[in-house]
């Protein structure tokens, strides 16, 4: 044992400082640790956030003095009745849902090839480059990007000079712009999900004689469904409440977000705006519940 002096020292137990004692008692009481860990987040999200939401949703059951805009604290279902009875609101809600779905589908179609390439085909260096390339637009301002699309779809704009026709200001332009804005939010979860898909599964499928289409349908798609669902949460909800993009490229159209915004501003009708907001909350909660079963929430 040249050079080393390995004597067996008597190693005593560590000193029982306060830190050690509390650490030990925490170890014995997992629920205390849990409580401690959960307290701050729960307080913030559960009490503050949910509380604010509740306070807002409560106003949906009140009404407003039509002229001054002051909230009248008299319980009534009038807001919801108006939402239900007047056709225009139903039209707006349906239109918004369709746009949100379209945006999600468009993003999924655009995101999949690039996510797959990044996860399975690209070399590590290319992968890193592509991730940077995909994430960079997230930093360019939302408003700047929306105005860029306004320039692109206008008469004599970019699209017209290239294709000869342009959708102009309207729902088509709004859908395209929204799809553009939320694309990174679909690419990232898909990329993460595809990374987790073992290459061996794809090889096995090929070995068993499946064409790429079949492999995609039976192997890839089911595995990335949670990731797809996770991405769709973002594209769907972000489109559901958006009103700025519609103002910039939407021409004469209006979506749910615009009606909510107008009612807060124009009519100073917080109760009615809150009623409309309730609709979006209900839609998203249902969506989340449906999507939860696919395991999307673990895949965000």
């Amino acid at each position, binding site marked *: 044992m040249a050079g080393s002096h390995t004597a067996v020292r008597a190693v005593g137990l560590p000193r029982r400082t306060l830190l050690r004692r509390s650490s030990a008692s925490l170890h014995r009481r997992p629920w205390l640790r849990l*409580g401690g860990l*959960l*307290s701050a987040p*729960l*307080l913030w999200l*559960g*009490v503050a956030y949910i*509380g604010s939401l509740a*306070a807002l949703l409560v106003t949906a059951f009140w009404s*407003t*003095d*039509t*002229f*001054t*805009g*002051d*909230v*009248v*604290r*008299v319980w009534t279902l009038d807001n919801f009745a108006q939402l239900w009875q*007047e056709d*225009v*609101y139903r*039209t*707006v809600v349906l239109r918004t849902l369709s746009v949100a779905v379209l945006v999600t589908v468009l993003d999924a179609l655009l995101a999949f090839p690039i996510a797959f390439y990044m996860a399975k085909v690209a070399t590590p260096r290319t992968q890193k480059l592509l991730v940077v390339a995909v994430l960079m637009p997230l930093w360019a301002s939302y408003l700047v990007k929306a105005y860029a699309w*306004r*320039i692109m779809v*206008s*008469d*004599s*704009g970019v699209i017209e000079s290239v294709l000869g026709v342009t959708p*102009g*200001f309207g729902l088509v332009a709004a859908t395209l712009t929204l799809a553009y804005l939320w694309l990174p939010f679909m690419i990232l979860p898909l990329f993460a999900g595809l990374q987790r898909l073992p290459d061996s599964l794809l090889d096995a499928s090929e070995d068993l004689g499946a064409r790429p289409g079949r492999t995609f349908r039976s192997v890839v798609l089911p595995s990335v469904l949670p990731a797809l669902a996770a991405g769709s949460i973002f594209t769907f909800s972000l489109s559901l409440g958006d009103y700025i993009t519609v*103002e*910039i490229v939407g*021409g*004469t*159209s*209006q979506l749910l977000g615009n*009606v909510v915004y*107008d*009612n*807060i*501003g*124009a*009519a*100073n*009708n917080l109760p009615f705006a809150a009623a409309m907001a309730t609709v979006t909350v209900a839609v998203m909660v249902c969506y989340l519940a449906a999507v939860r079963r696919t395991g999307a929430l673990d895949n965000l």
Partner: protein
Amino acid sequence: MAVTSVRMLATLSALTLAIAACGTSGGDEDTGSTSGGGFSAPDVAMLEEVGKGEGELNILAWPGYAESGQTDPSVDWVSPFEDETGCKVNVKDFGTSDEAVSLMKTGEYDVVSASGDASLRLIAAGDVEPVNTDLVPNYADVADFLKDRAWNSVDGQMYGVPHGWGANPLMYNTKEVTPAPDSWSVVFEADSPYAGEITAYDSPIYIADAAMYLKETQPDLGIEDPYALDEEQLAAAVDLLKQQRPNVSEYWSSATQEVSAFRSGDTVVGTTWQYNASLAQSKGTPVKTVVPEEGITGWSDTWMVAAESEHTNCAYMWLDWIVSPQINAEATEWFGEAPANLAACDLASDENFCDTYHATDEKYAESIYYWNTPVAECLDGRTDVTCTDYSDWTTAWTEVKG
């Protein structure tokens, strides 16, 4: 956890207390004295004496009303104000009167340049206070036809200081729109040759433009004042606007929007502010404005003081500043509207400024249908019907946009 439940309980009780304590609604105050506006102005204290400046002022203004050199370094009447009074200024712009009303509700602003479709709502909600015009020396020089009007005063009490006034003429692209239009039919009729290239203002107040058109084209509706519409008249206006909608390329809510649309050719004709027209012309877009035969709507903006303001002294200083001859000349010339202070005419950099904007033409000024706030008690004096109010107009506007 015990701490969490205590906090939850505290929040819940706070909520309940707030709910209980706030008692009955503001709506019950309608039993107060009514003016021609059909509402009661709540009791809000008025300043009796202007003291020392508080060192800060938050201004809510139409874009171009409170320039501080940001748009053009030579266009600045905010910095001299700051130097002279020591009130540091923060300016926030808004695009429509509705935004202004909701922003004023936040209580964050001290003065606001309110148009007639916002002013009465602000007064009724108690968001602005009456203005003691004795404390504003330059008020004496304001044109008489702007004082004690339906939109800026209640029972003879002024609620602000007029800034200027302007109209919403028809703008058209001289190359694309020939012959030059002389009627609003070019934007309202279904068979307009410019279908798909029309623009309109994105605000419920635009309904008044439709009503003004109907006043001439459908006289049996009996519309006298485009801001006093009963249900039947409102329905007719809404039908006209719904008829217009498929032909509209875009509803504009900011000057940048309208000017860029005219520039790119997406729009060739529609309602505008003189400001937008001047801007488009300065960029080389071939546009002209015209006053159609059915008349035009317009606006006269009033600088109002917030009721909850913590900087009332600075606010009054601003009021006096903005309506002083030199500054009023600068501000109104920059924006493109007639000044409230007629002494400004001699100080404008363009000697024809006041002529261009008909500033001294009282007859012209009287012919404009100024933005006013629709209220239930008919503004035209009818007592046999209830008129529709602004919230009805807002619902109607949502319906028009579809």
